[in-house]
């Protein structure tokens, strides 16, 4: 009997200690896992012969990249090979965006905004590297630029003349179907263009586009903003929001009703209203981006700050922006992942940094490139990031 009781006691205590040790182990595990291994790129795409300035994913396993010479490569993410490559522009590509499944919009310093359709059905095999380098050689550039029509794999939809003398790349909203670009004459003003005719195949290549509103600028008390550096468009419910970053370090937000956005107005103030204006950077703002819910706006600049501005529609009354200092100056590009969990910045020091959207705490440093990272892009609904660097390489990462 005594033995029995002793055993019972034993079992009893054991069960206690087991449950507790399990709990403890769980918490221990959590703590130990707190630091995960240093991330490394899972693939590096080499193909450009000069600084890669823009990257964009589509939703069908393709990555587009553009470089300093205006050369664009379309990569397949299935076999990591170039599918198509062509000279889209004669100068530095400022920005590119996939605006529909196989439609790519590119903007370049040659003052053109071009829309391309890639016929993926007709592309049967990837380009050999020799072909890639042949197409890339400068001698072919001009001849290629004139022979788009003969190429049935890539067709040019439209190409309009717009100002690209600043470094501000265009931004596009697919609900409002409008484009925001820098004003033709004044570098500190924004123009809104109709995007529909860009997407119709009949647009004349020498067209100048349809301008809906022009010369949008912050209404300030003689505060100089300097040149427009970056813009971001997003539609949120009834409203269309336009954020702009300026050379002075100012970040401004304009808003309008989505229904009015497509009205042609001489005076922009009939449509747009400035709802936010804040100097949160000491250096030119290089990138502004909204999160998916459009209730937070992130900005990066040539200084070391990442700023989270809260944006409330119809109220200019916002809480103080949340500033985090990365201690590393020059964050060229900033992107927010679609799930609003993380943001990534592209640094002049060749490193990309990942921050938590909520707390802006640093989560990871992506260290691979030997030179400035110019652009980065998230693949929608996945954890893949592409970084485009001055060292002419594109690295692909899987983060969270």
């Amino acid at each position, binding site marked *: 009997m005594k033995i029995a009781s002793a055993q019972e006691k034993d079992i009893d205590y054991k069960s206690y200690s087991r449950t507790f040790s399990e709990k403890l182990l769980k918490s221990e595990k959590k703590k130990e896992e707190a630091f*995960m291994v240093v991330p490394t790129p899972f693939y590096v795409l080499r193909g450009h012969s000069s600084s890669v300035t823009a990257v964009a994913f589509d939703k069908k396993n393709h990555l587009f990249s553009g470089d300093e010479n205006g050369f664009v490569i379309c990569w397949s993410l299935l076999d990591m090979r170039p599918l198509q490559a062509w000279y889209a522009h004669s100068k530095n590509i400022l920005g590119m965006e996939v605006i529909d499944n196989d439609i790519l919009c590119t903007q370049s310093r040659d003052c053109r905004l071009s829309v391309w359709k890639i016929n993926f059905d007709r592309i049967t095999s990837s380009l050999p590297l020799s072909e890639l380098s042949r197409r890339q050689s400068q001698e072919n550039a001009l001849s290629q630029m004139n022979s788009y029509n003969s190429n049935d794999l890539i067709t040019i939809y439209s190409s309009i003349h717009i100002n690209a003398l600043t470094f501000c790349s265009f931004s596009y909203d697919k609900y409002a179907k409008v484009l925001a670009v820098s004003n033709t004459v004044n570098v500190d003003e924004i123009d809104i263009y109709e995007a529909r005719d860009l997407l119709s195949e009949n647009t004349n290549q020498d067209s100048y586009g349809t301008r809906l509103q022009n010369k949008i600028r912050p209404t300030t008390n003689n505060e100089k903003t300097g040149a427009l550096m970056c813009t971001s468009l997003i539609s949120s419910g009834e409203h269309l929001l336009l954020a702009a970053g300026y050379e002075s370090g100012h970040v401004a937000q304009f808003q309008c009703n989505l229904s009015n956005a497509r009205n042609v107005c001489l005076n922009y103030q009939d449509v747009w209203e400035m709802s936010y204006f804040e100097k949160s950077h000491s250096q030119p703002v290089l990138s502004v981006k909204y999160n998916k*819910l459009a209730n937070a706006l992130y900005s990066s600049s040539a200084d070391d700050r990442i700023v989270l501005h809260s944006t409330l529609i119809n109220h200019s009354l916002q*809480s103080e922006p949340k500033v985090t200092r990365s201690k590393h100056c020059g964050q060229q590009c900033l992107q927010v992942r679609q799930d609003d969990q993380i943001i990534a910045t592209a640094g002049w020091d060749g490193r990309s940094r990942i921050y938590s959207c909520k707390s802006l705490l640093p989560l990871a440093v992506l260290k691979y490139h030997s030179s400035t990272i110019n652009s980065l892009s998230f693949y929608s609904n996945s954890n893949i990031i592409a970084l485009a660097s001055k060292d002419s390489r594109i690295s692909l990462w899987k983060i969270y």
Partner: protein
Amino acid sequence: MDSFKNELSKSIGTQRLKEILSSIQVHIGLPEAENTALLHTIAVNILPSFWEIGNETSSIQDQLVNCFATFPGLKLLCARLDELVYGDHKNAASIGMLYLDVLEASFNKLNLKKSRNTIMCSSITESKKRSTWSGFTFFLGNFGIINSSAAFLSAYNISITNRTYNVSNMAKYVEILSKKIASLLEPQNDSIITDFSHLYHYLLRPGQQKAAVSALFPHLQTYSPSFQNLFRSLNPLDQNTFLTYLFLDLDQKYSHFTFQNIEDSESIPGALATLLRLNFLPCDFLQWLEFNWEIPLNLFLMRSIVLSCSVSYKNVDKIKLKQTVNALFSTWSASHFLKNYSVVSQERLTVYLILLLSKLDREFLHECSKSFLFTNGISNRLESLDEGIRLQGMVLAEIIAQYFLVSETKSLKFDVPLMASSKATYLKSLTELNDQFQPLDSLCPQVLSAKNEKKHIQDGNAPNTQESVNLDKTFEDSSDHNERKVIIDDLQPYEISDSESEDSVDDPTISKTKVDTPKYIQSLCRLLLDVENYDAQKVAIETAPELIQRKSLFGSEVKDHAKWLLEILVGLQNRFDLPNFDRLQLSSLCNLLSACPEICGPEICSILFIGDFSLRQKTMILSSIAMAAVSLANDEERFEFPTKKLPQALHDQFFSITLDKLSFDFEKKLTMPIMEEYQDKIEGPKPLQTRIISRQTEIESRKRSPKANKLSKVVDKSLFLLLTNGFMMAVKRSSFTDPLFLVYYLKTMGILFSQSCTSKIEGLSRMVDEYIIVLTEVCRLKVETPEVNEALLFNFLVVLESTPGSLLASQHGKSLLGFEAYTQFLFNSADSGEKVKSVAAMVLLEFEKKMKDYRTLALEKILDDSSNLSLGRFGLAGL
């Protein structure tokens, strides 16, 4: 009593039995012999016939149970069961089962208070009362009932699957007894409750402490003096056991709340502490903590324990707290503790210590930080190979060191990656916890669940607003505490390298990348080409001379990139006004030239005359050629031991090689013998002066003996002839007749010639030819600048000294005579400076000396050349 016994031993009617039973109930509780005998009779005779007869007997059953629910009754039933086990009875199993039923019912009905009163209020002596009572409690507490019933059940192999007996189940038995004690925890029982402490003590001993403690748990929710009396009457070991199981119970009860909602669970430690302090004193917890810290508990419970034991107004408690902390700390510090305890329990102790330390006063902690215990403990831990143990040591050291009142501002900080881990942050954050006693409401499960439900409803209705509210919150939250909360929600960070935390330059216009010193010639070239970058230029030019020299000793790296590097070096401009730029550039070039003269020589000579260089660059090129020539010729003197060198600044000042210095040295070397000789002549022979002889030999020995050196192998085709040819072609251009250029050019030529000509080389005669042509050309230019003339004279001197006399006389007699005439002219000219005149005088002396030997030959040659057909050729020999 005896009469009852007799009556009962015979057959008896129901009515009479009832009467008898009710009359004996009053006395039956005392364990006296007659009571036992009576009960025995009842057990043997009455029970089989009257137990389980039907409804009418239920009152009899009750009465029977009342009789047996006493000390002697229970004891007798157990004795009977034991008897059945060991004896040999008919129908033993069925009788045993009957007894078991009675025992079960009696035990359930047992009234402890009544039993106690029966014994205590009887007429027996006080000591007997006590011994009887303790006999009873011993009987109950020693599990005699369970032993007997279980032995019976197992002996007869009776399966009791369809019925459970409380009396045969340890847990049930303890639970029932504990509940019986718990029911006594009423205010009116305050005085008698201590009598049951022994019983409770027995209950706490074996394996069913959990049942014993949880039965009392409802009474702990309120302030209960009777419980406190009971608890105080227990011995310390039992008290500790009680607390242990109480904590484990609480832990199990409330742990799920902590995982559900962080905000709500923040109040749980405080509320638990309130609960604990209702009926316990701080010293109870301290006493428990000292010996039972190893019990695995959740953090929130640890917090509440620490809170409950640390808050007290009594000095005794404060002292006890310090003593406990000291005891725990000495355990923590001991090296055997590190070896023999698991890391998990070590961490538990660390957590307790951290929590306790924040509750102590500064003076004590100050004492603590100075104590040997502290330093010893920390050092023991830091020595450990286990990361966790080291981490605990470092965290605790940092915390205690804050109280080391030496420096308030600068506290101890272990700047290692380990301390940046989340575990370290977790441990360190424990100090900032400020638990306060909270109302007991928050422990109420309804409150918690209601809160949660409310939240869920909100979430369901308006997720967007919730989100934005949360976001707004994060804006406002600036305190560390809240930040930490946010981290918990956040994604886990990847590992970030140490250098990340370093600040880079604030001004983005200044390049922030640190330029590494180049390791390869190729990278050096790239840095040199990066003319826009100050750092790159500075680093490159500073490392260039040494790198080239080092790389030239092995491999073909320098040779492979020689031409490229040479072009870069020659074209290099001092854009950023770097210090020592010229010297560094020159020595880089010089090192490069001497590393691969066969490649760089022709290249540099051709670019000197072809390239569009400034005068500075030209002079630099020439200087570098000369210096390279010297270093090539004096191969063995290339390296100096650092210890033989003056400090760098002084060395640069006194020993930096320039072309002027080099040519001056040579000039001195060349003219010294002549000067010595003529000094002798002027002063007259001094035959007795032995010193002169020795001096003469010294001078002679200083003269270079002809031998093949590195320079002589390459000099003619790689350098010399190219320089002479190039000059002759370029002399028509004004930029190449600039006095400064001429000075450098002539001096370079002189050095080159003097350095290489000492040995027998194949192209010597051609070199001399071209050299003489160049010198003649320079003479023809008739530059009036004294420096040029001086350089020219230096060259004459070199020619005279280095070239074999016969060669000169036979081939270049005419030119030599021309040179002599020019020297004469310079010597006599009023314009030429004092220096030139003195050099000219020396050159003239040299000429004279040479002429003495070779004049005849020279003249003969001249005549021979001029009049080939002269018949009287030999007749003129006498001239």
